[in-house]
């Protein structure tokens, strides 16, 4: 193989590596920024920052698989929306670069609201004393209420959607055993 040929092959390989690196970096989004989709009315809620200790606790609660999957980064905790304040603690909305998480006092629910088939993120949980149930969530644009049904399809309660978010207060009287097989439906 002549020297010219070797140089041609080497140049070809280097150009291929460089171009595939560039294309792959763009495709995989090497520097994703947390944000909420514009078609989520909850994106208009005021944002604030959480202190580092709270951010770490929430990050642990979401767990490494969720953090990675939904693109939760330190920047996420500077774009927090408050969905509800309850005696047991607040419910936050934490944006990621590829989804978002609703975080309650001891539970989280993450998803990609607005993606096909995903009309909401809903989370309800038992209160720490195990007596009551509290919850909150967000829905995509156009939803006026969120209906909670039992496993057999019978209605349990309907929650109004305001600014793209909804809240289940303990005063609604839902009890932890009723959480089993709960079904959430966005009503337009």
């Amino acid at each position, binding site marked *: 193989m002549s020297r010219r*040929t070797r140089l041609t*092959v080497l140049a*070809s*390989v*280097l150009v*291929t*590596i*460089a*171009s*595939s*690196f*560039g*294309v*792959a*970096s763009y495709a*995989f989004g*090497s520097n994703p920024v947390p944000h909420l989709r514009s078609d989520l009315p909850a994106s208009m809620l005021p944002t604030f920052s959480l202190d580092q200790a709270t951010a770490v606790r929430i990050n*642990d*609660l*979401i*767990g490494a*698989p*969720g953090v990675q*999957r*939904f693109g939760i980064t330190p920047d996420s905790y500077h774009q927090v929306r408050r969905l509800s304040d309850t005696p047991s603690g607040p419910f936050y909305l934490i944006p990621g670069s590829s*989804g978002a998480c*609703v975080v*309650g006092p*001891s*539970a*989280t*629910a*993450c*998803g*990609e*609201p607005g*993606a096909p*088939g*995903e*009309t*909401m*993120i*809903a*989370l*309800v*949980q*038992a209160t*720490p004393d*195990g007596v009551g149930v509290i919850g909150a*969530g967000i829905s995509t644009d156009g939803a006026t209420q969120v209906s909670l049904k039992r*496993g057999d399809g019978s209605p349990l309660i309907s929650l109004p959607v305001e600014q793209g978010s909804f809240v289940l207060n303990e005063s609604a009287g839902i009890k*932890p*055993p009723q*959480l*089993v*097989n*709960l*079904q*959430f439906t966005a009503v337009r």
Partner: protein
Amino acid sequence: MTSRRVRYGLYVAIINIAAILVGVAAAHPQTFLHTSTASASNTCTHYTAPYFTGNPSTQPQNCYAFIWDYCCYNHNTTGFALRDSNIASFATGGGQNWSLWYENNLGQVFSPGSGSSTYGTIGTSGGQSRKAFCYLDFSGFRDYYCTTLYTT
């Protein structure tokens, strides 16, 4: 001469394909480092959900899905773990309604949470976990079910 050129072209093509892989790997190493912990099988091997033992924080637990006849429908639908901090987590393939519960200190079934999302976690106080299971029902005829037996 033509055959030599064809061989030469083939070599260059192979080298360039390798170069593409090198470039992609440099840009996104997770693509090549990803490992799956979910088990997969096309045969029906379980008629009751199996228990998993061991520390789930270092040993991921898998869930199994069943239909009415309790024959395995799909083996790689959810992941489930009960970690040292007594946080349970699981993930589903789509935005489904889910609920999760387990036995409390008194052996009573306790429902700590429910939701509609593709991923959820539940953390509880107490520090001990016992038998836990998650369950999803999103079409009226398909059940997802898994169990974990772990004591700190």
